[in-house]
């Protein structure tokens, strides 16, 4: 009989809070990456309407210049800013920058890689994303 492998499965990707901020960042990075990909594909299709002449373009624009469209665009802005800012952090971290130096750990152990620098960068990425979204809202709905 097959032994149940007891993998946590995709559930393990959810509930990110239980392992701390870094896990939240991991999860947001995934979500925003996928979200952006979807948006990006849609965006390429959206802009392709331009080849069909002005009318088609205008029609497409109208479709997106709705409240829902604006909300989606705002979310995309947020996703983009978070994904970019956190992406830069992640790239540096994954190259071994700012993850701390090996050394004698003293009980109670505090892993050096989960340091405040990275936590701050994550928070900053989230913060920036929020700011950008507010700015976007202002621009989009402002007129």
């Amino acid at each position, binding site marked *: 009989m097959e032994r149940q492998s007891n993998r946590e499965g*995709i559930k393990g990707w959810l509930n990110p809070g239980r392992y701390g901020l870094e896990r939240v960042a991991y999860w947001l990075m*995934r979500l925003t*990456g*996928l979200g*952006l*990909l979807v948006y*990006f*594909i849609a965006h*390429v*299709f959206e*802009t*392709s309407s*331009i*080849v069909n002449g*002005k009318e088609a*373009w*205008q029609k497409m*624009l109208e479709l997106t*210049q709705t409240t829902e469209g604006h909300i989606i665009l705002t979310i995309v802005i947020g996703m*983009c800013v978070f994904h*970019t800012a956190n*992406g*830069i952090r992640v*790239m540096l971290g994954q190259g071994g920058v700012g993850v701390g130096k090996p050394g004698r750990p003293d009980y109670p152990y505090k892993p050096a890689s989960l340091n405040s620098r990275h936590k701050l960068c994550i928070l900053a990425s989230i913060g920036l994303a929020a700011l950008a979204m507010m700015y976007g809202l202002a*621009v*989009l709905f402002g*007129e």
Partner: protein
Amino acid sequence: MQESVIMKIHYGTALGAVVLVAIHILFRMTQNFSESLQYESVIANYHFLPYAIMLELILILLSVHGFNGLRVILIELKQGVGYEKAVNYGCIAGIAVLVAYGSRTILMAGFGM
């Protein structure tokens, strides 16, 4: 391809995209946002060769980055020789289709009209 090469491309495309997307968005800010989206100004943009090249670059970079990202998620999700092959080729196909489709727009909008 060696996984490290793929992932270096992933990071490279991301870095390239940071710069280019910033420019792309800045272009939206040179004028009032909705004005920038008027047909005429968009077409004008497309006719401006450096901008068109940049768009093409963004297209390639982000397609590669995005679909590789998707590939990563998918092979982490499920394993198996057949499945992983399908994911890999699927993503390559995705990149190809997206780039082709986007390029069509850029070419036609930039030179066709």
